[in-house]
């Protein structure tokens, strides 16, 4: 009985070693498969969509709760002396550039604070060319191009998602044929936009994104797109890509899958399933929209132009309807004016 009460002295060390061994094996396998993917990419092979067991497993996880828990954890206030070490560790792990950070490291009370850091003045000069459209964020270009007839954006070779699913079926897109544009001066167009009854003019016709101009004086318009992925160590504030009027905001609660490179290869419809905030409006050349898509570790999106918007809410608070929650910015038809480079919002942790 005395030996029974001591239990098996090898149980805990054995289980620990087995767990470490298993985690090591999983990590080695992950590194091996990532290496194969890197080799494939370097040899120019485009990888196709390969839904795997992990993607199926992710669908069963309470990702929203995990994300919110991560938000609480990363928001834990650190002792002042520990802060520089913690933020340097984060910067080293995720290749953040500490030279650009606006404040001394001990002034960021938590990892979450450090994550939404602003940058020193002058670190991001705004391209001054009046004909340029700038990147609203730091990141890596995932896809870029012109939308053709099908108006689909390729997520990965062999799988594409539709722009209207990403932005919302009620997206505005100028349908006005050339004669309308040609005859209407801007103020008249503004009036038309403001008049609800003519809202149909702005209904989406993503089936034919090219606007053909009958009068040769005005160039035909196309619909272009750019997808930018932000790594965990990147600067995560979102700025305005051009001078534009933000007419409307659309918030999709959605899921919170990871959006890293592996997820884009294994999870279908990633960008149209995930929680996201879409801003829609008009710039000098017509329609423009910007979608900020969240992820498990970066689930909440904050808008400086609408501070009371809350995303990544607990499931029970979420409106179960699929339809996104919309807000038209006042004054209608003019909305919120943003200048190129203005801060628009930020991706928060959790």
């Amino acid at each position, binding site marked *: 009985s005395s030996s029974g009460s001591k239990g098996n002295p090898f149980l805990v060390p054995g289980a620990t070693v087995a767990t470490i061994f298993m985690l090591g094996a999983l990590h080695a396998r992950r590194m091996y498969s990532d290496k194969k993917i890197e080799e494939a990419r370097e040899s120019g092979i485009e990888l196709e969509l390969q839904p795997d067991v992990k993607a199926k497993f992710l669908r069963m996880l309470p990702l929203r709760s995990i994300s919110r828990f991560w938000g609480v954890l990363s928001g834990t206030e650190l002792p002042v002396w520990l802060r520089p070490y913690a933020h340097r560790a984060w910067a080293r792990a995720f290749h953040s550039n500490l030279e650009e950070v606006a404040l001394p490291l001990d002034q960021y009370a938590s990892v979450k604070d450090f994550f939404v850091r602003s940058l020193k003045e002058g670190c*991001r*000069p*705004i*391209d001054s*060319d009046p*004909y*340029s*459209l*700038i*990147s*609203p*964020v*730091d*990141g*890596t*270009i*995932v*896809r870029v*191009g*012109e939308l053709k007839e099908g108006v689909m*954006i390729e997520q990965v070779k062999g799988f594409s998602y539709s*722009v209207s699913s*990403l*932005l919302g079926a009620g997206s505005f*897109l*100028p349908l006005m044929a050339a004669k309308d544009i040609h005859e209407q001066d801007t103020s008249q167009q503004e009036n038309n936009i403001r008049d609800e009854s003519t809202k149909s003019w702005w209904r989406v016709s993503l089936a034919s994104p*090219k*606007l053909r101009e009958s009068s040769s004086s005005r*160039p*035909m318009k*196309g*619909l*272009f*797109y*750019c*997808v*930018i*992925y*932000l790594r965990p160590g990147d*600067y*995560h*504030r979102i*700025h305005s*890509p*051009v001078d534009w009027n933000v007419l409307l905001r659309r918030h999709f609660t959605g899921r919170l899958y990871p*959006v890293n490179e592996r997820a884009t290869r294994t999870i279908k419809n990633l*960008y149209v399933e995930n929680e996201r905030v879409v801003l829609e409006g008009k710039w000098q*050349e*017509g*329609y*423009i*929209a*910007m*979608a*900020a*898509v*969240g992820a498990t570790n*970066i689930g909440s999106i904050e808008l400086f132009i609408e501070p009371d918007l809350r995303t990544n809410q607990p499931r029970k608070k979420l409106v179960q309807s699929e339809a996104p929650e919309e807000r038209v910015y006042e004054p209608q038809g003019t909305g919120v004016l943003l200048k190129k*480079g203005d801060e628009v919002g930020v*991706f928060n942790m959790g």
Partner: protein
Amino acid sequence: STVVLVFQAPALSSSEFRFGVEKGDKIRMGEALGRL
């Protein structure tokens, strides 16, 4: 996280919007993605 931009711009060869970046490029906020 990911940001997707969708925008209208001239598409005639004489005045087409031209991207200055391509897939895989690193970009920083404020740098031109393309020009009219």
